[in-house]
């Protein structure tokens, strides 16, 4: 079915509204991770070494808000920061998938 012009404009508006929000939330997640790492007394290089990464650049990529913590290393990341993995994942979900977080936990948007 072909979309009407007003529908296309609405979709474009929604996309523009969502885009900065997704990036902004990822950045907030990065800031939170940076703070937790600082609390644990680790540098980006220390954390990367503990996670078995050859370079620490990915830690920076995530903390600068350009990438997410991959699910497969979320538990290890949490452990190195001295956090409980489930609580860590739940908190990150708030930034990475706010709607899913709201559906699962009924928390504020």
């Amino acid at each position, binding site marked *: 079915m072909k979309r009407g012009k007003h529908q296309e404009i609405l979709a474009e508006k929604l*996309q*523009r509204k*969502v*885009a900065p929000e*997704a*990036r902004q939330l*990822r950045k907030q997640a990065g800031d939170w991770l940076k703070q937790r790492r600082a609390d644990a007394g680790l*540098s*980006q*290089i220390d954390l990367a070494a503990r996670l078995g*990464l*050859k*370079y*620490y*650049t*990915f830690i*920076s*990529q*995530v*903390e*600068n808000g*350009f*990438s*997410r913590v*991959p699910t497969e290393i979320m538990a290890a990341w949490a452990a190195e920061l001295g956090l409980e993995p489930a609580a860590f994942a739940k908190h990150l979900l708030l930034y990475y998938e706010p709607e899913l977080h709201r559906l699962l936990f009924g928390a504020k948007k």
Partner: protein
Amino acid sequence: MSVVAFERKPSAGLWSETELNTLVAALNIAVAPDDGRGWETGVTEAGDAQFYLLGPLPDQACELCVSRIGGRYILEDGSGRLLFEHQSLALVALHARAAVRSKHGWLVARAVLLWCTIRHMIHDKVEPLLTEGEELFVELAPQLAAFA
């Protein structure tokens, strides 16, 4: 006496204009401002330069990242997988371009696969139904004509 001003090889801090030009020229195939595809730069905690190639809207997540650590260039994808590393930025940029191309190629391959699956489903499921309907019509048409 004339002094030749060699360009100082950067080892830390922000990207030089030459470095940025090399990266942007190599990755221009993946940059489309209309759908949000672009690039950004940043620095690590230790002050090493990073270049992020961003995906399309709405997420604009990092698809590729080039970092410079002590004169060595590191190419990673958005999940932190190390794709390539070398002292030559030109070589790293070439690998980045190839990674972008293979990603686009993979999308085309998936689209073709999807199309083939749909065609196969139509062939298997819909066509027999149409043929059956046609046969039924041919069978019933004379009877309907007789009633009319």
